[in-house]
């Protein structure tokens, strides 16, 4: 089992619904977020391209945040999900520095927080909150090890990319382009 997320940039409108849904689902305090929207414009008027992306922790297979954590609070669980155990986190911030995606933040209560792929929802067979709320249905979640899963099929048939592949982190959030 290897969980991954596939996001279709051709459909994403950048509305940030994924951000609010995550905040209300996971009690993320106001002023913080576990996911966010990036807008990339290229070209000049009127020959333009716009890419909108919902970004978050990439749940990397080679996660620098886990390697650099001095207490073991940052760890990988079944399915390749990277989690933080809050009561083991001393808030040193090494993981925040090490993440090429800037996916982690210091929670006001002192520990480091980030996307969990809505682990608690997966346990109940539900999709992550962001995936289930998206009005454009541009986000897909599933098991990369299953060649017949929707995400495996999408990655097989569609052009895609990951963010900062040069960082060597083996990210598991894929963008259809």
């Amino acid at each position: 089992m290897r969980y991954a997320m596939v996001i279709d940039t051709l459909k994403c409108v950048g509305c940030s619904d994924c951000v609010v849904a995550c905040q209300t689902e996971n009690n993320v305090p106001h002023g913080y977020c576990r996911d966010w929207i990036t807008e990339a414009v290229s070209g000049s008027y009127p020959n333009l391209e716009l890419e909108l992306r919902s970004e978050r922790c990439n749940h990397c297979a080679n996660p620098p945040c886990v390697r650099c954590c001095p207490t073991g609070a940052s760890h990988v669980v079944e399915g390749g999900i990277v989690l933080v155990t809050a009561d083991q986190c001393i808030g040193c911030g090494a993981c925040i520095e090490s993440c090429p995606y800037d996916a982690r933040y210091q929670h006001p209560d002192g520990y480091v927080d980030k996307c969990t792929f809505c682990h608690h929802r997966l346990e109940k067979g539900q999709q992550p909150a962001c995936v289930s709320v998206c009005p454009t249905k541009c986000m897909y979640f599933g098991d990369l090890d299953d060649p017949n899963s929707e995400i495996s099929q999408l990655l097989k048939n569609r052009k895609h990319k990951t963010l900062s592949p040069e960082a060597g982190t083996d990210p598991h959030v894929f963008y259809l382009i």
Partner: protein
Amino acid sequence: MVTSRRKFIKISALGLGGLALSSSAVNLLAPNPLLDAAVKENIAKKLSRTATYCEVCFWKCAAWAYADETGDIKKVIGNDDDPHCNGRLCPRGTGGIGMYSDEDRLKTPLIRTTINGEETYREASWEEALDLIAEKFTEIKQKYGPESFALLKHGSPGSHLEHLFKAYGSDTIAEPAYAQCRGPRETGFGLTFGSWVGSPEPTDIRDTKCLVLIGSHIGENMHNTQVQEMSDAIDNGATIITVDPRFSTAASKSSHWLPIKPATDIALLLSWMHVLIEEELYNKKYVEKYAIGFEELKAHVKPYTPEWAYGITTIKPDSIRETARLMAAAAPATIVHPGRHVTWYGDDSQRERAIAILNGLLGSWGNRGGFYFKEKISIPKYPHPAYPEPKWGWHEIGQQYPFAEMGNTSEVVKATIPNEDNPYPIKAWMIAGTNLINTLPQREQTLEAINAVEFLVVVDTMPMEITGYADVVLPECTYLERYDGIRSATNRHPSIAVRIPAVKPKYNSKPAWWISKQIGDRIGLGDYFNYNDFEEVIEWQLNKLGTSLDEMKKIGVKNFERTSGPLFLGEGQDYVFGTPSGKIEFYSQELADLGFDPMPVYTHHPQPPQGFYRLNYGRSPMHTFSRTINNPYLSDLKSENTLWVNPRVARILDLKKDQPVWLKNQDGILSAFPIKVRVTERIRWDSVYMYHGFGHNNKKLTRAFGKGASDAELISQIVVDPLMGGTGLRGNFVSILTEDPHKNTMV
């Protein structure tokens, strides 16, 4: 400026301290080091769910509000069975709990008073506030007649108050949603197809092969079903053609973006018709069977070649031809979208006519992938005595516009300004759910009317700008805390949805149905409010519809089979359109008879003078009008707007990213607050762009106050649509100031 009897009061002043202390703070994650455990515990908490439908915008998606044992709402999730949202709310709906949890909400009734020469508000009991309002209702009726009391409204609270006003004898009712927004398209489509577009739009985007958007920015306007279906259309490989001076989100999803020069859309539409007809690409069978006036149209559009349009629109002739051919190739599964906020240049009904005619040529109306025949269920009327017949009302006030079919808020404003020749003098206003200061153009005129009005009541959940001008402020509870009327949706099939209070109203706020009834009971209209709780009304109606409140509480949404026939026209099917001729009217005799152009013509509109840029505005996907800017969740996503400026303009004016600037319009009106520059290729060099709704000047909106600029305050020029009275808002030009023009002014 208007010297004011009614001074704006920043709602605060007296005695709110005690209440503020007792108000429940936003309840988020309690300090807990065990995050995983905390989250799990939170999820494991018994959350009870209550059926509701959203009121953050007018789409009214059905949802479930989840509350914990303490009666605090934790999240709002779309109802899977709802055709408006299919289980997926938009960011505003998901963030709807912020409407409830916002600590800046209006908390208790307020009455204007003067203390030591200063106008201020004092807290009042509901008894006192309602008694005062009832007294004024009676007084206005005696002095001027009930017609002189106007209701200006938006959304669900408006319908309860509308009932009160009609029972009282006033039909002086209007909402900005008409003359400031979608009115012209209803006129344009009504004249052509004999049917309003209505809301939600009956566009079969899901199954379309070609979607044409003209200034309509689906994806930035989060009209949920439209956004969802545009995504389906992308999946299905539909061609999307977007006409917009700005590289909108929709433009970025399009195979063809036509970066049109603002205010020239009709020229493009005429030349598209020209190509379809000259190249014989139009749907001949359809036109022959269902339309009249084709020969007149053919002769009319003959001169409007793509070359002619190029000189006006700056769109290359090849692009015009290519896109016309794409539309024809996909037809009848082509939608030339009517748009929604269409009050632009004053000839808007005629532009909408052009859009409608184009759809007629393509055979889109009544065909799969085009427009479907919508259907809804009518909700049985809860019995009450007949309404008295008013001597005059919205219709008379706007009678110079022969095709006006709803009240025109701007005309109500004008009729409020004292004028001896005005046969329809308006003396008092009730305003519910609409912030007129940021909704209407020509703010000075609005303030003049506010100054003249003898009595002004505002019903709202939040202290908006308009609230500060009220004599009495009534705090309405949010949609998550109240019953409202049954939502009857117009879609591919009928459905109904209910709104049940998920929690008790916070603070000392009350639902609009209760407010209406309380006033009604006090002024002798008790027979019109023959119930103790609005729940009884809904229950009675649901029983008539073959369901029950108990059932609806469990399911939230009930879908019904169609009974009006198929969604689309059958092959060769006879069909009578609701026009005078019973046909699709390319040529409108009705318009000709009244001295209007029977077919749309292009009129030149002023372009910005040297040193000025056209002020364009639009929606941010995270906000609705000006009402959500203070919402703690949505403010988190976008707390202020920016001024989109093309890099060429930035170079000329030496503007840098995030630099604060002020705007001055053609009439010398200044933006109250600075707005940060966003240098972007996504906007033309002759225009600037900003999201609507920002630049609040009520300090009680702690998150929204002073954030960004208000487009509305800069819209002092309007061009009125002679057909239906719509106020064209896009003929305003601004210059960009880098120095604070207010710095020597006492505020």
